[in-house]
């Protein structure tokens, strides 16, 4: 243990503790900007570049960055001496001198870390005037880039490379011209970007923001010729409360349904329902492949889940040779859209074009997913608009509502009932667990001895297990972050040495609960933990916890689809993948 003093207060910390963490331990909150860590998820961005967290260390010539300086025995640290405060203010003033002064109209207004730093340091004017950076604005269907606002914290770059291994973004140029950008300053959409949006989730300022679809949805609701239905993803209900001052992990399913109705949606449904449907399709597909394999037939194993659109984009771009491995099942958003446009619309007595399907997602990639050709019929999309959790919160506030005051209401039927299995889709390992619950019982014809598969849960980046499928050892793996997915895909490329049968992948930290459309967690991984706990709490609270026992799901098979992986379901609930990789094309 190391003894030191911070602001004359003694503190004892284990070796290797940074000044920043030691200070937090005794209630001294040194401000930071570039520093970003997802504790327990092996993600860290610690370039030591912004210099906001500098502190005075006795005996040291210059100021030290608290985020990256380890405590030493006998150290005397001052976090708010006149020298420190002057330096810190000057550094923030410098950042502001190259930052557009448009806070009021900025997407990040109120959520901006630079804004709160400015307020906290009491900066009233910027003494420096000079050249400001100007860059072309750029947008994909999910992510909007306004690099004039970039503060070079490099969080997005770290996310894109170290966490996701997508490699769309890199620091480019140098000096005052340095910025984070795709290669050749090309549009992000032309790069290897998969729209996971994690760059947006970690951006401290308004340089990377989501593409806002609120007005599209409001317009549809206002249009009397349209019937507007909404589906809400499992991870939304455990995070939306945060936007209204509730503690992380508060479950607001009922209040959310009530709010959505008051916003003017004609019907409020649940993506959890289509998650159960997904399990029926995907589980059946898995069993089919396994049975073939057991018979010695040629079949692609392991099977990968396919509900995460960033993941789908990732393997289409990076593993075009392995496109037959992922399940062909559409994602729950996609399945819901297909059911809504094909089955629900006639039921509601509207034409396909007049039914507007809106999804509320914890995700930004869903905004890009819904534009996939495979999810349209004659140019009419199965899902018309996707709003993130944050946009929904905006919309609720915009419409003079407060989620806290909402009554608890239920989803509408027939696409509203869901099981615990559908709920846990929101967390890493959840799709796997849901699939196992169903596949086991369908395959063995026996009741599960235990419903909870603890081995698929938690924040480990890659989880492996062998599940006893009534004598058959089913080898599974669960990964979050595309970097971990890449590790597994490379293994598959090399012949699947670990003999996996089924692999679940989600791109975001901790799964959809840590999605890019969720309320900003600002690097507090405890928030993601609380959301995960809430997901499993909701699961336990459900009377039915296995997808195949969902009454409304059973009903639609009986009434419409016949059987999982049947002809109609193949047509509507399954999809195809195409090679989206960069190709070397030789010319003469």
């Amino acid at each position, binding site marked *: 243990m190391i003894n030191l003093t911070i602001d004359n207060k003694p503190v004892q910390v284990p070796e290797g503790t940074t000044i920043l963490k030691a200070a937090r331990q005794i209630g001294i909150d040194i401000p930071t900007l570039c520093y970003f860590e997802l504790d327990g998820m092996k993600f860290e961005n610690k370039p030591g570049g912004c210099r906001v967290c500098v502190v005075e260390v006795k005996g040291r010539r210059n100021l030290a960055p608290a985020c990256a300086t380890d405590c030493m025995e006998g150290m005397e640290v001052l976090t708010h001496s006149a020298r420190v405060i002057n330096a810190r203010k000057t550094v923030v003033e410098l950042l502001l001198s190259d930052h557009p002064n448009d806070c009021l109209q900025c997407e990040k207004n109120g959520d901006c870390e630079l804004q709160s730093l400015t307020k906290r340091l009491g900066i009233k004017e910027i003494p420096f005037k000079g050249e400001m950076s100007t860059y072309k604005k750029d947008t994909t269907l999910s992510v909007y880039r306004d690099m004039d606002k970039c503060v070079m914290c490099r969080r997005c770059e770290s996310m894109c490379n170290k966490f996701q291994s997508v*490699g769309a973004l890199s*620091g*480019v140029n140098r000096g005052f011209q340095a910025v984070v950008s795709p*290669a050749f300053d090309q549009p992000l959409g032309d790069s*290897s970007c998969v729209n996971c949006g994690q760059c947006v989730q970690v951006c401290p300022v308004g340089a990377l923001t989501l593409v806002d679809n609120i007005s599209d949805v409001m317009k549809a609701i206002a249009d009397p010729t349209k019937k507007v239905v909404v589906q809400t993803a499992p991870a939304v209900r455990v995070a939306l409360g945060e936007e209204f001052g509730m503690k992380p992990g508060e479950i607001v399913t009922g209040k959310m349904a009530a709010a959505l109705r008051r916003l003017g949606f004609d019907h409020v449904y649940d993506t959890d329902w289509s998650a159960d449907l997904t399990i029926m399709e995907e589980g059946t597909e898995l069993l089919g492949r396994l049975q073939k394999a057991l018979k010695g037939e040629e079949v692609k194993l392991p099977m990968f889940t396919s509900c995460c659109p960033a993941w789908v984009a990732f393997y289409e771009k990076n593993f075009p040779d392995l496109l037959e491995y992922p399940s062909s099942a559409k994602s729950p958003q996609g399945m819901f859209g297909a059911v809504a446009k094909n089955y629900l619309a006639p039921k509601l007595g509207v034409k396909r074009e007049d039914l507007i399907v809106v999804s509320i997602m914890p995700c930004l990639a869903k905004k890009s997913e819904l534009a996939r050709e495979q999810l349209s019929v004659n140019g009419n999309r199965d899902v018309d608009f996707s709003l993130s959790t944050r946009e929904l919160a905006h919309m609720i506030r915009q419409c003079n509502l407060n989620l806290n005051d909402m009554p608890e209401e239920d989803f509408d039927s027939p696409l509203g009932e869901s099981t615990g299995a559908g709920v846990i889709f929101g967390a890493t390992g959840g799709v796997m667990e849901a699939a196992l619950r169903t596949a086991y019982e369908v395959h063995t014809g026996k009741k599960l001895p235990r419903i909870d598969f603890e081995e698929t849960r938690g924040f480990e980046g890659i989880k492996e297990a062998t599940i006893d499928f009534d004598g058959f050892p089913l080898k599974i793996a669960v990964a979050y972050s595309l970097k971990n997915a890449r590790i597994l895909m490379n293994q598959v490329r090399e012949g699947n040495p670990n003999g996996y049968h089924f692999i679940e992948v989600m791109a975001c930290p901790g799964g959809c609960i840590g999605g890019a459309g969720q309320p900003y967690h600002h690097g507090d991984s405890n928030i993601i933990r609380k959301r995960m706990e809430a997901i499993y709490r909701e699961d336990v609270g459900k009377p039915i916890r296995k997808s195949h026992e969902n009454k409304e799901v059973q009903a639609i098979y009986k009434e419409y689809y016949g059987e999982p992986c049947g002809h109609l379901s193949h047509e509507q609930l399954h999809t195809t993948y195409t090679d989206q990789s*960069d190709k*070397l*094309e*030789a*010319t003469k």
Partner: protein
Amino acid sequence: MANIKLSEDKIKVIKDIAKSFGNKPGEVINVLHQVQGKFGYLPAEVQEVVAHELNIPVSRVYGIVSFYSFFTMEPKGEHPIDICLGTACYVRGAEKVLDAFQRELNVQVGKCTPDGKFSLNTLRCVGACGLAPVAMIGDKVYGRLTPDQVPGILAEYK
């Protein structure tokens, strides 16, 4: 994602260089040095192929190319032409001289003629305001230029 278009032999040159460095990502700077040595510059397509061969994101290659001043994405002509656009030159008609060069060479500022002979650039001041307007071709300084002199000067290099 885009398709990379480059001639077969150029691709082969890059592949061979990458291979000589064991296709190791850590050798990217060495590879870029050699590739630039062969082609004179590093256009986007070339960087794409380098990234492909070393199995690293092209953004990283570009991050490196744009960081180091030795690497360039613009081809330089055999005879680089620099036109001074300092105030003194500007008011004495440097822009007209620049226009004349552009017209004669049929090339934009910052670019190179298709035959690779001339590249055209502007600069702030060469410190020869007394001779304004001034242009430099290679190391040679031409002063008191008029647009009608331009064809004759270019003829020296053709």
